[in-house]
């Protein structure tokens, strides 16, 4: 579903003498198969968001090759948009001044979703995510939890085969978080939607992700299952400690070394 082959992205920052090149992502390679649920971790500034922007076609890579849902994101951005769903936890795709329901209607037109499909899918999502109480409320009056559920719905109305989530549980209370996780788990298990998730919430990772990729300073530092991840540290450490150690680049010395 997602193929990343030796992808790099650099930015030139500063002016004049202070001008320098920053490599946000370098020589990054990985593949994600259909139906996988992958957690994409990394410290702030490691290149997670840059990767997501390249996967969705917002940014063009400076080197390497990408393919998502069978398309090259850089050259087929709008075609790709119809095949993937994206949620940025910190931003909204909804229309601030319009009732939630109208935003969905607009999404339907933009993504050219068939009217009957739209109706049944919206009914299903509204049920699962409990949107009934605020479908007709202007988005600017929604609470964060409600808005996030609205955003997830908007990202799924066109039935994408890949869902890319950038910190979807950020700022949510425990109950909303649990509901969101349960929803994502079912989406992946029952519909087979491929999910790539970035988060700083290790609870999301423990509950949802069968596979974890960790990016550090623009390179893939770890790729494996949750158990593999735990195994990188001696017994007893919490998942937090394990991840913190990987983030700071501290590794256990090789046995016998």
């Amino acid at each position, binding site marked *: 579903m997602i193929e990343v082959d030796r992808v790099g992205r650099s930015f030139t920052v500063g002016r004049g003498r202070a001008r320098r090149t920053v490599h946000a992502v370098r020589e990054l390679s990985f593949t994600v198969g259909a139906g996988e649920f992958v957690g994409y971790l990394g410290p702030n500034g490691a290149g997670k968001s840059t990767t997501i922007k390249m996967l969705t076609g917002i940014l*063009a890579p400076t080197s390497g090759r990408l393919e998502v849902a069978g398309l090259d994101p850089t050259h087929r951005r*709008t075609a790709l948009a119809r095949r993937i769903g994206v949620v940025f936890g910190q931003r909204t795709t909804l229309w601030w001044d319009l009732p939630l329901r109208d935003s969905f209607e607009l999404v339907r037109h933009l993504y050219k979703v068939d009217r009957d499909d739209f109706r049944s899918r919206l009914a299903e999502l509204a049920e699962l995510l409990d949107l009934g109480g605020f479908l007709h409320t202007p988005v600017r009056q929604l609470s964060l939890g409600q808005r996030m559920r609205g955003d997830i719905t908007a990202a799924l109305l066109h039935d994408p085969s890949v869902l890319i989530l950038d910190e979807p549980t950020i700022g949510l209370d425990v109950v909303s978080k649990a509901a969101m996780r349960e929803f994502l788990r079912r989406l992946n298990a029952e519909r087979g939607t491929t999910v790539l998730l970035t988060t700083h919430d290790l609870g999301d990772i423990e509950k949802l992700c069968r596979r974890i990729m960790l990016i550090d300073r623009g390179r893939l530092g770890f790729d494996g299952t949750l158990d593999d991840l735990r195994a990188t540290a001696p017994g007893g450490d919490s998942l937090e400690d394990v991840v913190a150690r990987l983030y700071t680049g501290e590794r256990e010395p090789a046995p016998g070394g």
Partner: protein
Amino acid sequence: MRIAWYGFRRHSAYRAAALAGAFTNTVFGILRAYVLIALWEARPGLAGYDVADAVTFCFLSQAFIGPMQLFGGGVQLAERVRTGDVAVDLLRPASLQTWNLADDLGRAGYLFLLRSVPPTLVGAALFGIVTPAEPATWAFFAASFVLGVVVSFGWRYLVALSSFWIVDDRGTQSLSMVMSMFFSGMVLPLNLFPGWLGTAAQSLPWAAMVQVPADVYLGKKDVLEALGFQALWAAALLALGALATRAARRKVVVQGG
């Protein structure tokens, strides 16, 4: 298109602002009318206008302020680039420019009703303005008005896109405002400008926003030439905008994590 209608509705959320704008446009229209009446009574027939033409020009130009957004802005894009929200716009299966154009046409339509019609009616009641006798002139004027909005959008979109490169767009915005005010004919009709300055001003894109549609209304210009001039600038600015959008995705940082 559907997005234009939503642009219309989005802006109708700000009725108070539009009404305040209409009031200001009317008051300034009356002030400017007195100045122009004094000028044309001192120099009758100046620039091929009589007093009634000059007063009409004055109220038409006041009516254009809202829809053509002569004081700059109107495109939310600059703000969205600065905050990084443009990432969300780029996730849509639509061209960024077409999308913004549709939204802007909706905005212009709404502001036409609230900010163009009332000042013109007040001007007509207080001073009497010229009204075209031929239905064809009204039709040409309508076409010229819409083309004027498109040229204005093409220009403002480029100004807004500049914030991809220069982070803070206040400088370009205020430069754009001065150019729009002066070279559109908003401050003084362009046919008052002498010699090469007049020729230059009449051939720049800003002329398409006020001078040309006003002259089409007054029947002072060859209609086909006038509409052709506007269409040419509309096409040129939109083409430049499309190129700049492409470049933005390759060259620059999309801000925010």
